[in-house]
């Protein structure tokens, strides 16, 4: 948000007289204008000798403020956007797809909660391989615990492919793997850097056919946020909330599926509950709980929270080695 004096170039009505008038009321930039009562300002402007010009300046400033927020849309426009752009991407795992009525939805932030080795990373890798191969979309994988395994992704890709086509296989494999970008991030500030860079790239990117990023995975977001939570200050919670907003903004504006993983902590009465606390609960759109039957390759997934589904719905699926 610019200080008022920089707006003078573009809007000559906000001249030095206007700026001095505003300065007497403690307004130096657009942010100050947002916190000030503009009707009171108009009343003060009337008492000045150059009241007409000042009032025109205030009107001009109001129209600048009108450009500061997102555009107003009506229900039909929202619906058209949802139907045209916000499709569903299948995860490659039938159980989860059935549970979510098709798969992961673009424009939404989905969270996978589970204890350690409950299959969260496996599901992420499976989704990565599926999006890169079947949906031919780009994948950005933010790995916080060195759990990204290219070999496992190749295994998943090879599982569903036709064994008859062998010659072009290597080239196809290379093409698919080129769509996956993996970043190692070990603290939340690096994650913000990577996400901001991604935002810049997405905004300036031309529609390059099949290299359009479709899936963003953060595995796991809890390991980035937990070290900064607590300690009595609100900085940790503020960073967590900002991260949530940034992920949702990327999901909505660039039509991405955003998938994050979270671990569990002990709660009251010994029942485990998701980490990151109460404030995080209202950030993701969809929350799924994963668990793993000991010694088998069968996983359970149940719905914690979904915008249009009752929580508690469950399904089982298998991930083969």
């Amino acid at each position, binding site marked *: 948000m610019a200080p008022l004096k920089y707006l003078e170039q573009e809007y000559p009505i906000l001249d030095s007289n206007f700026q001095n008038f505003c300065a007497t009321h403690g307004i130096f930039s657009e942010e100050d204008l947002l916190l000030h009562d503009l009707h009171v300002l108009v009343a003060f402007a009337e008492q000045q000798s150059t009241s007409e010009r000042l009032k025109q300046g205030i009107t001009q400033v109001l129209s600048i403020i009108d450009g500061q927020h997102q555009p107003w849309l*009506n229900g039909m426009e929202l619906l058209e956007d949802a139907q045209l752009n916000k499709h569903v991407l299948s995860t490659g795992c039938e159980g989860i797809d059935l549970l979510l009525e098709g798969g992961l939805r673009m424009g939404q932030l989905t969270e996978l909660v589970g204890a350690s080795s409950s299959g969260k990373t496996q599901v992420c890798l499976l989704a990565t391989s599926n999006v890169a191969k079947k949906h031919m979309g780009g994948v950005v994988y933010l790995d916080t615990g060195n759990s990204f395994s290219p070999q496992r992704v190749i295994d998943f890709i090879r599982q569903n492919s036709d064994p008859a086509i062998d010659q072009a296989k290597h080239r196809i494999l290379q093409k698919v793997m080129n769509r996956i970008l993996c970043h190692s991030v070990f603290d939340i500030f690096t994650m913000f850097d990577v996400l901001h860079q991604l935002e810049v790239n997405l905004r300036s990117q031309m529609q390059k056919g099949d290299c359009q990023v479709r899936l963003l995975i953060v595995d796991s977001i809890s390991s980035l946020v937990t070290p900064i939570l607590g300690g009595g200050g609100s900085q940790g919670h503020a960073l967590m909330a900002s991260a949530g907003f940034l992920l949702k903004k990327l999901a909505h504006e660039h039509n991405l599926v955003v998938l994050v993983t979270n671990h569990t902590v002990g709660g009251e009465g010994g029942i485990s509950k998701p980490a990151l606390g109460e404030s995080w609960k209202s950030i993701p759109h969809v929350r799924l709980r994963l668990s793993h039957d000991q010694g088998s390759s069968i996983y359970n997934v149940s719905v914690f929270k979904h*915008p249009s589904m009752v929580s508690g719905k469950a399904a089982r699926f298998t991930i083969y080695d």
Partner: protein
Amino acid sequence: MEEVVASPREWIDRNESAKTMLARVLTARPLLLLPPLHRVPLRVGNVVELVGTSPSAKTHILIQAAVSCVLPKEWNGVHYGGLDRLVMFIDLDCRFDILRLSKMLKHRINGESNGSLKKIDQEHMDFDLWNNDTKKSPTYDEELYSLCMRRFLFIRCYDSFQFLATLKTLNYRIRKEQELHGISVHILMIDSIGAFHWIDRASTFMPLGATNRKTPSLQTVSETVVQEIRKLLLLHPMLVIATKATIFGDRYSMETKRNLGKLDTSNSRSMSSTSLQLPYREYMPSVWQNGCSHHRVLWINL
């Protein structure tokens, strides 16, 4: 000024009796029966806060109320019982799903029109009339549906500054939309008023320059929000419904279940009235709490 002094008798004479005043107020500001909040006597000019944990059905209630508001009272002979007004929705949580609203609206429209078609069939027993109505029904449902969807106005905000910018220009926007649609805005919905709470609380802006400069902080932002809403209600009387998610749930849930009679006095941000028994910890500044005229707590046990 001279006129008032000249006739002091007129000044102390009564303007109207209580009965006429009540009649006038009830017609100008009627009670709103908005399902699912129809048990709560709401009137335009009220600011209602729906509090609950996440997930409770707060957004669901907002969507139901929005459907009731945008539907007309009657359309093509079918009674819908709606308020026939515009709804403005400010999404601070950025989690709104338009498909839910769409499904609920379609369900409501189809439910009502199917009910009335059956009635016509029984009453008239006229096959031609019935055939004509069934031919008409898919098309006029679509028309009504798209009319109602267009009456729902939506915006999302990613931070407090965008929210403040929206509120400041809301007056002009409402006027424009009212001219466009020909009907007035009845409800302003804010989904999750506490969405930016942590971000605002942690923002420490260095006080630069003049001493009369307001630095953006939780207190100043909340004061400005309340001020703007108050001014808006003076110009455009409407109902404001805001949802709020509790953010200090679990730590206090066991305690409060046991001590429901006592007040959580360790909370520095709680309301000063000791007679209130809050099953959750209040975190919004008191300027917002005092700005709300109704508090409805939704406590859903999972």
